[in-house]
């Protein structure tokens, strides 16, 4: 791997089974409760599409599902469809779900960025907020209200 190509890695431990975490990552009725209103549907098989609809009802993602091995591994492409996004080639998101004592260790790796990617900076801020909210949602039934999420909702309405 080239040292110049940025890779984002985030690990979180969640008091929920891999099956529950999988549902939350792939089903839009669940994602909208923690992913700051985004309806993310990644329930298809490899070769099908991952779609994300923002809180304003606009399509924010329409990316290929590269690998789907429930409840262990999910890989999809990543190219935001907003017009104000920098023009960059699609990157790649990998979710790895590992069981440990009835809990899940979730590792998210976001890579395949070009050197100097601007989108990389955005996702580096975004994933900790989304994945913290996912953990809260699965452990307490409630996602987080964060200023990052607020900004994202506002942006979604405008973009």
């Amino acid at each position: 791997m080239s040292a110049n190509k940025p890779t984002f890695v985030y690990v979180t431990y969640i008091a929920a089974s891999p099956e529950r975490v999988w549902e939350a990552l792939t089903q839009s009725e669940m994602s909208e409760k923690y992913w700051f209103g985004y309806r993310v549907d990644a329930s298809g098989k490899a070769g099908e599409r991952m779609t994300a609809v923002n809180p304003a009802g606009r399509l924010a993602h329409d990316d290929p599902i590269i690998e789907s091995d429930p409840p262990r591994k999910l890989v999809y492409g990543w190219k935001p469809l907003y017009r104000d996004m920098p023009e960059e080639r699609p990157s790649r998101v990998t979710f790895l779900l590992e069981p440990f004592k009835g809990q899940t260790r979730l590792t998210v790796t976001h890579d395949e960025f070009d050197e100097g990617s601007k989108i990389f900076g955005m996702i580096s801020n975004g994933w900790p907020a989304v994945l913290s909210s996912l953990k809260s949602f699965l452990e307490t039934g409630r996602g987080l209200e964060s200023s990052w999420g607020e900004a994202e909702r506002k942006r979604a309405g405008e973009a």
Partner: protein
Amino acid sequence: MIDAARFKPKTVYVTYIAATPEAVFDALTQPDFTRQYFGGLAVEVERRTGGAFRLLAPDGSVHVSGTVVEWSPPRRFACTWTMASMPQYELPDCLVTYDIAPAGGCVRLTTTEAHQWDIPDAILSGGRAGWPAILSSLKSVLETGKPLAVKLEQPAEMLAALQALRR
């Protein structure tokens, strides 16, 4: 006076927690909290900049010792870490900083591990494996009252790199 600028950030972990900044600060600085989520370690800290800082194992032995570099409740807590449990490796102290910022209905906790030498990635793997487990459990303690069952172990690559340092 410790020159914090000598330390370069090597590992950063950000987590958002549904709690007040005061509650997060307490969870980081009070032994009844840290025992629950920090691998059983009890924090012992003099509540002032320049004060002593220690992490004690359940048998009372000193796991980490250090000095408080910044005591600014409820926004920032920073201290040097001397790995007292591994004196044989003579590792230079590192600097661990917790930054607590309000972020809408929750707080953003940023944990930064900084080093003053050209530390190999293999040695950093210890913190890179440990912080997500510790801070995930801290978040669960504050939001649900229950810590996670997490396994804190030293990665084989870290132990090998530490051994290599002694040669």
